[in-house]
């Protein structure tokens, strides 16, 4: 019975049908429009609303941008030019303001002749970060390196750096790039030294001060290594020795060495910092310092020792529970109260301390997420091989956890970088408000509201958007790696 039935079903196709193109209504512009803009009454309405929005934006901002004036000595002159060109009621942007004062937005009151120093510090930042951030793809890394070197050099030259400075820059950057490509392991060490170079470049003075500060770490490390068999005590001793070095010997040693070979750059004091140089300095310092602190906090928060865990939780929740602005006020109003009578240090340094604490709490949460994402087996394998807690963390857990956390770290950084504008409220010259206000206080530019916002906003957008794209790229990559 089933056999008879089967006779009726048997079927074999002799010729394979070729694919044919879809009917006309299914292709081309018409289809695209139909599907993407006019696929239903709601969608048609939305499309018109969207067009309306675009029209409003373009018709208000467009002419203003279109009538922009780039060459004028004051806002009054700008208005006059616009009135001449476009009639008395026309309004237009006066970007002449930006042309006159761009350097203040970017460099604050940093001495003009020394602009190459922040530029170089910023360029070197990419060299320092490249081995960490672009370790995955050699091509991306080389592009970043190449761009950093060329752009830094070109910008420094355009800003009028001296020949000697230019030559030094070029040699330094090329050597460093070569190091990154040839000896990736060593270049990480160079990245660790970067902060000290940056401090020297930005603030100037003798190279020996940051070098001696750095030496403290070296000495501590040596002490620890040579006494490693004593475990925790070696570490404690190393900390003590390092602290002693900084407190007692570093200063005299630096001045002694400086008197032999000065290696001095012209000092620039903190109150000359402003604009984006200030924002980036605070942002980068904050993130670099908060990273180790965040790691420690994250480990403490995951620790099974209740006291340590509780302390970490208290710290993190406290910091995350108050606005950054109040912490900045603490930096400017209270920090001096907490220190021994008579001590007094730079407001930028105090702000960096507070921003660091602030970022560290957020960083700790990001890293905690990375730690939690690691399978338990990794910890167990470490234990089974006989690695102790710190070795297991350093060799196995943290390298993986930090890598997973990079996207979170980048977005923390973006948030923090944006927040650096708040330093205006403690009297520092951030690019957004303080600088704009300072420039607007002058007679020539009184009454120019929009132009500084457009300019500063665009720069922030470019920097932050770039970083967020980078973190998305990383996220995709990590997702792929994890399969």
């Amino acid at each position, binding site marked *: 019975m089933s056999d008879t039935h089967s006779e009726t079903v048997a079927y074999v196709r002799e010729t394979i049908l070729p694919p044919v193109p879809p009917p006309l209504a299914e292709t081309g512009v018409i289809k695209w429009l139909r599907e993407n803009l006019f696929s239903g009454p709601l969608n048609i309405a939305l499309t018109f609303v969207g067009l309306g929005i675009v029209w409003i934006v373009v018709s208000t901002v467009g002419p203003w941008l279109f009538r922009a004036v780039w060459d004028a000595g004051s806002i*009054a002159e700008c208005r006059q030019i616009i009135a001449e060109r476009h009639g008395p009621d026309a309004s237009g942007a006066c970007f002449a303001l930006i042309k*006159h*004062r761009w350097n*203040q937005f970017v460099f*604050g*009151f940093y001495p*003009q002749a020394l602009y190459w120093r922040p530029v170089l510090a910023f360029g070197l930042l990419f060299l320092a970060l490249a081995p960490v951030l672009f370790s995955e793809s050699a091509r991306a890394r080389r592009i970043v390196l190449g761009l950093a070197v060329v752009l830094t050099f070109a910008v420094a030259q355009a800003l009028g750096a001296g020949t000697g400075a230019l030559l030094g820059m070029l040699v330094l950057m090329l050597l460093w790039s070569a190091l990154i490509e040839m000896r990736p392991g060593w270049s990480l060490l160079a990245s660790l030294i970067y902060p000290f170079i940056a401090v020297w470049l930005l603030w100037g003075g003798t190279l020996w001060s940051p070098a001696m500060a750095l030496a403290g770490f070296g000495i501590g490390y040596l002490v620890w290594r040579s006494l490693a068999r004593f475990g925790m005590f070696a570490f404690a001793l190393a900390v003590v020795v390092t602290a002693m070095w900084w407190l007692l010997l570093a200063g005299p040693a630096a001045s002694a060495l400086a008197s032999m070979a000065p290696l001095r750059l012209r000092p620039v*004091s903190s*109150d*000359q910092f*402003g604009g984006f140089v200030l924002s980036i300095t605070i942002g980068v310092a904050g993130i670099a310092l908060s990273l180790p602190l965040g790691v420690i906090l994250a480990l403490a928060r995951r620790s099974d020792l209740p006291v340590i865990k509780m302390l970490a939780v208290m710290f993190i929740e406290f910091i995350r529970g108050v606005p950054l602005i109040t912490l900045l*006020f603490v930096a*400017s*109003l209270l920090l*001096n*109260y907490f220190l021994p*009578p*008579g001590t*007094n240090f730079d*407001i930028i340094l105090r702000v960096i301390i507070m921003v660091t604490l602030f970022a560290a709490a957020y960083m700790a949460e990001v890293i905690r997420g990375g730690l939690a994402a690691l399978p338990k087996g990794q910890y167990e394998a470490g234990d089974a091989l006989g690695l102790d807690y710190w070795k297991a963390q350093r060799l196995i857990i943290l390298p993986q956890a930090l890598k997973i956390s990079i996207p979170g770290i980048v977005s923390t950084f973006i948030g923090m970088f944006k927040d650096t504008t708040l330093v205006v*409220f*403690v*009297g*520092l*010259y951030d690019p957004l408000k*303080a600088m704009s*206000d*300072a420039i*607007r*206080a*002058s*007679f020539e530019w*009184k*009454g120019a*509201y929009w132009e500084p916002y457009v300019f500063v906003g665009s720069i922030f957008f470019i920097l932050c958007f770039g970083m967020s794209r980078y973190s998305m790229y990383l996220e995709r990559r990590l997702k792929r790696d994890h399969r």
Partner: protein
Amino acid sequence: AEGDTLKEVKARDVLNCGVNTGLIGFAAPDANGNWSGFDVAFCKAMAAAVLGDATKVKYVPTTGQTRFTALSSGEVDLLARNSTWTFQRDTDLKLDFIGVNYFDGQGFMVRKDLGVSSAKELNGATICIQTGTTTELNLADFFKANGMDYQPVNIDSNAEGEQQYMAGACDAYTTDASGLAATRASFADPENHIILPEIISKEPLGPAVRHGDNNWGDIARWTLYALIAAEEYGVTSANIDELAKSSQNPEVQRLLGTTDDMGKMIGLDAEWAKRAIKAGGNYGEIFAATIGEQTPIGLARGLNAQWTQGGLMYAMPFR
């Protein structure tokens, strides 16, 4: 801290001077970050007196919020930031005002077309005011005393106040009369704005130092008097060197340290006052150069004229 500020400053070789973040005429950085203004001139005079070099000043911009703390916590050695001398600040805030360098009073500025000619007519008006200043308190008291209502618009900085006022976000802008004049002067159409005749408060502005270090307070106080006295005796930055050699006026001789060494009494050398005056000129010169009638700010001397001219500027005798 009651420490020896003079010693600290000398050791540091730079004077930390707290100034406004940007009030043109009084203290403002220019495009290169060079500070200038009436308050800044006093910082320079102090630096010249104490350190012998008027450029050895680090200007610490302070906001209305942070200024007193900056002083009391030792971040600045001297606060030269148009601050009003009040009882509470002098006592409870632990500051010492060392004198008055500008006698001011709070006033109102309105648009001419508002049709108001007296502050008493401002019932129900919207008024722009900087937060955290004595003006805020004076304003509340004035309207209360006159049984009037008003709507405050709080602003954070002078620049913002100007913006709001110009845009018509407030009917009146109130601050010290000097500030009003400066602001009005900077408008494209000063003729369309009037400053109402009422001055609703006394605003003696002066530099302040920390409470407790009397010697440092003396130095600041007498540096200010030196500037004022110099004007009284006709000592200017132009003729000072000559007068130092030739003047027969004993008061001038003592001031310039050619006879008595008064500097020793305050821990300085004999020529401290001479350097202070030379740095930016005497009081009158400073006034004229920064906020006087020849500048865009265009303030008249008024109360700030020498006592001999009918004003209140009166230096205590150097003897």
